[in-house]
């Protein structure tokens, strides 16, 4: 029952506190752990956020398999494959950026890897924009009054179901793209911090946590790609 039998000093322990240590943490280790844990919990949240869309996809895919296959053939799997590779590469450069801070490589190396990540991310978004434009040209924007597919819809599929696929396509890839845009917005200040030489083997939480986020966005795409682009490849032309 001894309340203050072994009380420890108020403060940050014996060694001099790191400048990046927040006042309410005891040491860098605790701070790092809290940051990583927080990021993981956030990712769990993101999984459920996308989960709602995956649920809708699954339900309608099960109901209207033919419509989904036919509509999927409107997406260009070559472009999709290219973008998948781009995104995977950006994940690699991000992993390397984290590595560079972990082992204390020069700030130029750190910023270099991050810049490569951003660049690849922008390439991905650019391609995506191009694809969206394509859909627009083909009359596949799933909004009331706009949806007007130029190519004939195969037999056994209603326009509604067709439109439903594109609605899901835009919702899922749109939300994914939004996450990438946000990611690019977040990495900018981190790059700036890296340029100022703020990261070291002792302190690189922001880079590490951003890396987790970026890889998570990559994982979402790993699923979107086969679900949206590839499900009808063997069904070319329809019946």
């Amino acid at each position: 029952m001894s309340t203050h039998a072994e009380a420890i000093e108020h403060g940050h322990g014996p060694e001099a506190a790191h400048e990046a240590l927040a006042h309410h943490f005891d040491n860098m280790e605790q701070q790092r752990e809290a940051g990583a844990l927080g990021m993981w919990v956030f990712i769990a949240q993101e999984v459920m956020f996308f989960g709602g869309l995956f649920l809708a996809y699954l339900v309608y895919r099960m109901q209207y398999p033919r419509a989904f296959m036919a509509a999927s053939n409107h997406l260009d799997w070559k472009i999709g494959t290219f973008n998948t590779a781009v995104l995977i590469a950006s994940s690699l450069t991000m992993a390397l950026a984290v590595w560079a801070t972990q082992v204390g490589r020069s700030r130029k190396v750190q910023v270099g890897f991050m810049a490569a990540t951003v660049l690849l991310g922008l390439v991905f978004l650019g391609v995506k924009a191009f694809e969206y434009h394509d859909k627009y040209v083909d009359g596949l924007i799933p909004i009331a009054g706009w949806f007007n597919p130029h190519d004939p819809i195969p037999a056994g599929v209603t326009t509604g179901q067709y439109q439903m696929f594109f609605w899901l396509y835009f919702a899922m890839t749109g939300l994914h793209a939004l996450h990438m845009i946000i990611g690019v917005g977040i990495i900018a200040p981190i790059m700036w911090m890296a340029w100022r030489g703020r990261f070291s083997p002792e302190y690189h939480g922001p880079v590490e946590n951003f890396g987790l986020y970026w890889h998570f966005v990559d994982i979402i795409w790993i699923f979107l790609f086969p679900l949206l682009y590839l499900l009808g490849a063997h069904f070319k032309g329809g019946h």
Partner: protein
Amino acid sequence: MSEHIVPRSTYYLVFGALIVLTAVTVAAANFDFGPMNDVVAMTIAVTKMMLVLLFFMHVRYSSRLIWVIVASMFFWLIILLLLTLTDYASRDWFGANVGGIMSR
């Protein structure tokens, strides 16, 4: 620091594997495995995800707690998907119109 530093070579290997698997999934999509189409595609996607999770995201070297979080996010996602599908899958078991299937 107690954190594990993954050698660069691992990252390159994982990257290579991911690219190869992407190629495999594209190739597989052009074959018709019948009802197994989705199973094949999803197996490859899950493999790719595991690679990213374990190596890029360092889960392999992380504490038990992180493992628990990763496991639980899949668990909850599966609850959401599976339990909803119990409804859709069994709607017409009880006879036409009862519970009712969707109009198509």
